[in-house]
């Protein structure tokens, strides 16, 4: 009986210390509930009509969050116990057995956990409507009337998950207590850490690992980046941990050896204090750096995808709507539809389709593989192609093809092929070709489009190498139309679908609006989840640092007392504290951010360079959008740094409790 009331009074007593812990716990519960709620929400399942499996996405990421939360809570709990060593040792001294102390702490965990669970879910319910609306807004779904609903299943799932986590957490706490010896408890304040000089080998190995990983990540060939992705991630993580487990100490040791730098006023103290604790901090700092790298990358990636989705839709698709075949009645129907909905056609193009089947030399394997034996390419003369380009959305470039050469429009991975120059052969005519990353949307299903100089085209046509039928199948015309408000009118898109779907003369069509909505749904979803997870990560990482820092702060009180007796003034003390704390926070931050910058370079090579068409460097665009996320992240991080510093100052000036 006494145990429970003791636990309650402990919580009351430690209220301030529990605040941070409690806050991050509430937030994790809130996130878990929100994810479960979104996965189960009826409104969302009605609104998101795309094929995207958002439910599984939410549940999958929800589980990822739970796993991280579990590790985070266990580790915070351990730091917290360490921080309370003195209190715990007093119980032990008064004859309370370890088991009893453990049970008391376990009970505390459960009480705090239950409170966090209730509050987190309450906040989740309170904001559930808002969450649904934000998500729907981000995925551009039709926002119908969102009703306020409490998902009992979501509550049940969340409670069950956290109950299990609390139990595991409590058990790990019990283990920590059981390993305590009374002597250890009292030594708590003055644990003589082993002298750490770091290791030059670790420093070099970690530098090599990270540099090689960076080098692989910035390779200009996307297949190399893709191939090495897991290697790069593995090497970066290993390099990061090794750096904190030995490299950092070595750097500090080098500073210490250089007395001109080391014996500079308060630096002597802060560097010593830091290097003294470097080993204790190693695991936490490494974990923080990795968490920061992954969460900032997730945020920057999601945000960039989302930001570029609109441009991407326009640029990858040359026309708002295009189709093959059909006749004038269809054109008229479309025009009527546009007019009825307050839109108007902006561009119109109609061209005949032709194919050609050259013998290819030095062709990329993938084209040969994709197109089988037939190797049929859609083909245009330069002037027709330019006419289409002119009519298409703004950024499609004009081409200039010299006589006797050809361009092969092949979007995507052209740069990866290190073949000789491809040559097109028609009997004894051979034409040198070049791959160009041009949009291939009006090629009627062939994998690439060949563009000839007008004269060559005419000659090939005359010789029968350019055909208007493919294996006997007569080719239809290509019609491309751009119209006003293409991305914002659901009605027009629906009308177009109606017209084009039911008509047998149509050999295929594409409506930009549909693709756009699909990609916005996907990217919006990824972005939404990315923000959430990053928010959880940032909270977890800063709380980890916070607990570690205050736990170690209690062990450093005596150091500051000694300093004061020797004679340091308030300014010097503040300087020492600042220089003692900031490296612990900002070395991982800088490292994580640099990792992320390189990760985004890799993402640019694989993905964004194909999505964002700019005159200059798509990576610069990526960095611009990413830096928004980096700045937001750093600001939040900085606030937590200030909170931790404040708390640390209170601890080492013995103002605590």
């Amino acid at each position, binding site marked *: 009986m006494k145990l429970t009331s003791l636990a309650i009074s402990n919580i009351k007593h430690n209220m301030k210390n529990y605040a941070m812990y409690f806050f991050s716990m509430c937030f994790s519960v809130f996130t878990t509930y929100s994810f479960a709620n979104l996965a189960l929400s009826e409104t969302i399942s009605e609104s998101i009509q795309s094929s995207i499996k958002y439910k599984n996405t939410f549940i999958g990421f929800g589980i990822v969050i739970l796993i991280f939360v579990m590790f985070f809570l266990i580790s915070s709990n351990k730091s917290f116990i360490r921080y309370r060593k003195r209190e715990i040792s007093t119980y032990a001294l008064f004859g309370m057995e370890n088991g009893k102390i453990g049970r008391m702490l376990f009970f505390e965990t459960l009480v705090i956990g239950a409170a966090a669970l209730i509050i987190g879910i309450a906040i989740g319910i309170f904001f559930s409507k808002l969450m649904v609306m934000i998500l729907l807004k981000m995925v551009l779904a039709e926002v119908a009337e969102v009703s306020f609903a409490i998902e009992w299943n979501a509550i049940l799932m969340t409670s069950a998950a956290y109950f299990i986590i609390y139990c595991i957490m409590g058990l790990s706490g019990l283990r920590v207590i059981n390993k305590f010896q009374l002597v250890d408890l009292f030594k708590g304040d003055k644990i003589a850490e082993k002298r750490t000089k770091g290791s030059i080998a670790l420093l070099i190995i970690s530098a090599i690992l990270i540099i090689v990983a960076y080098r692989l990540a910035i390779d200009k060939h996307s297949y190399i980046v893709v191939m090495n992705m897991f290697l790069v991630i593995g090497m970066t993580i290993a390099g990061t941990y090794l750096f904190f487990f030995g490299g950092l100490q070595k750097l500090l040791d080098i500073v210490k050896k250089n007395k001109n730098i080391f014996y500079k006023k308060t630096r002597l103290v802060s560097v010593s204090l830091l290097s003294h604790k470097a080993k204790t901090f190693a695991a936490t700092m490494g974990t923080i750096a990795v968490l920061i790298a992954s969460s900032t990358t997730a945020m920057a990636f999601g945000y960039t995808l989302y930001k570029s989705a609109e441009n991407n839709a326009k640029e990858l698709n040359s026309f708002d709507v295009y189709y093959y075949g059909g006749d004038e009645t269809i054109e008229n129907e479309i025009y009527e539809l546009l007019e009825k909905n307050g839109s108007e056609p902006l561009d119109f193009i109609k061209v005949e389709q032709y194919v050609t089947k050259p013998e290819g030399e030095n062709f990329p394997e993938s084209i040969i593989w994709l197109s089988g034996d037939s190797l049929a390419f859609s083909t245009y003369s330069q002037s027709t192609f330019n006419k289409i380009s002119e009519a298409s959305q703004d950024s499609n470039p004009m081409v200039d093809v010299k006589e006797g050469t050809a361009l092969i429009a092949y979007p995507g991975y052209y740069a990866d092929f290190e073949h000789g120059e491809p040559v097109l052969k028609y009997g004894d005519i051979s034409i040198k070709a070049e791959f160009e990353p041009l949009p291939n949307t009006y090629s009627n299903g062939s994998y690439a489009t060949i563009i000839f100089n007008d004269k060559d085209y005419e000659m090939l046509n005359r010789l029968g190498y350019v055909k208007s039928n493919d294996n006997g199948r007569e080719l239809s015309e290509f019609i491309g139309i751009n119209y006003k408000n293409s991305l914002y009118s659901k009605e027009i898109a629906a009308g177009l679908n109606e017209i084009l779907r039911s008509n047998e003369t149509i050999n295929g069509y594409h409506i930009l609006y549909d693709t756009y909505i699909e990609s916005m749904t996907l990217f919006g979803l990824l972005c939404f989840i990315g923000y959430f997870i990053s928010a959880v990560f940032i909270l977890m990482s800063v709380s980890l640092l916070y607990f570690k820092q205050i736990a170690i702060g209690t062990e450093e009180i005596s150091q500051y007392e000694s300093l004061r007796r020797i*004679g340091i003034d308030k300014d010097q003390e503040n300087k020492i504290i600042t220089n003692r704390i900031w490296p612990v926070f900002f070395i991982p931050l800088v490292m994580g951010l640099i990792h992320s910058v390189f990760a985004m370079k890799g993402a640019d090579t694989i993905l964004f360079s194909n999505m964002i068409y700019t005159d200059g460097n798509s990576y610069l665009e990526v960095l611009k959008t990413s830096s928004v996320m980096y700045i937001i992240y750093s600001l939040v991080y900085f606030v937590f740094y200030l909170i931790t510093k404040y708390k640390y100052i209170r601890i080492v000036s013995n103002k605590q409790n």
Partner: protein
Amino acid sequence: MRLLELKNISKTYGSKKNKKYTALKNISFDVESGDFMGIMGASGSGKTTLLNIIGSIDMQTSGSVVVNGIDVSDLSKKQLAAHRRENIGFIFQDYNLLDSMTIEENIVLPLALSGEKAKVIKDKLNALADDLKIKDILPKFPYEVSGGEKQRASACRALITEPKIILADEPTGNLDTASGKQLLNMLEYINQNYKTTILMVTHDIFAASYCHNILFIKDGEIYNHLHSKGDRQEFFNSILNVMSALGGTEK
């Protein structure tokens, strides 16, 4: 030359009226430059309090401490910290070395904090460490050396700023006879060769016999001030007499 002047120092602990406790009452005395003064008295008589007030670690409730003609209470907090670092060296019973630093770093700490150049620091350290014969332990951490070595390092740190006064609070309290004697010889050497004034609190009559004169404190007041006539054995005996008169039973 008069280095230190204490005028009517009183110290009361506790702010609540009913819980007030007077640790020092109207203490006045002077210390000449180059003196080696001992302070003795029963436990709780206020020796540490007195020493802390002289060293400006603690503030007196009334009265004034004048060091070298300057009233310490006129100094700002910043000046006070600098004064403590530069004019006064402390040797504590519990050494007060920082666990996170090597002996060398601990010794140079006051100089580094004062903003001295690395070159100057190194020169001073080398000269002093040679002179006081503690070169061997410089690269070690406090937990790697013995108590006696720690206390000698602590003395070395007290001396490195070339302070006018060294305040030692039971410096031999945690040491065995041999290392205690070693430390006392070192203090005597410092007093003679560096002309540093030393004030030492001690319970140990043997340690006290190294001093030139001894101030006895009883219940926060000066009980006696005993001067040595030069012979250590004779001084030892007269200290013993005062001690038994005081009612102390130490040694």
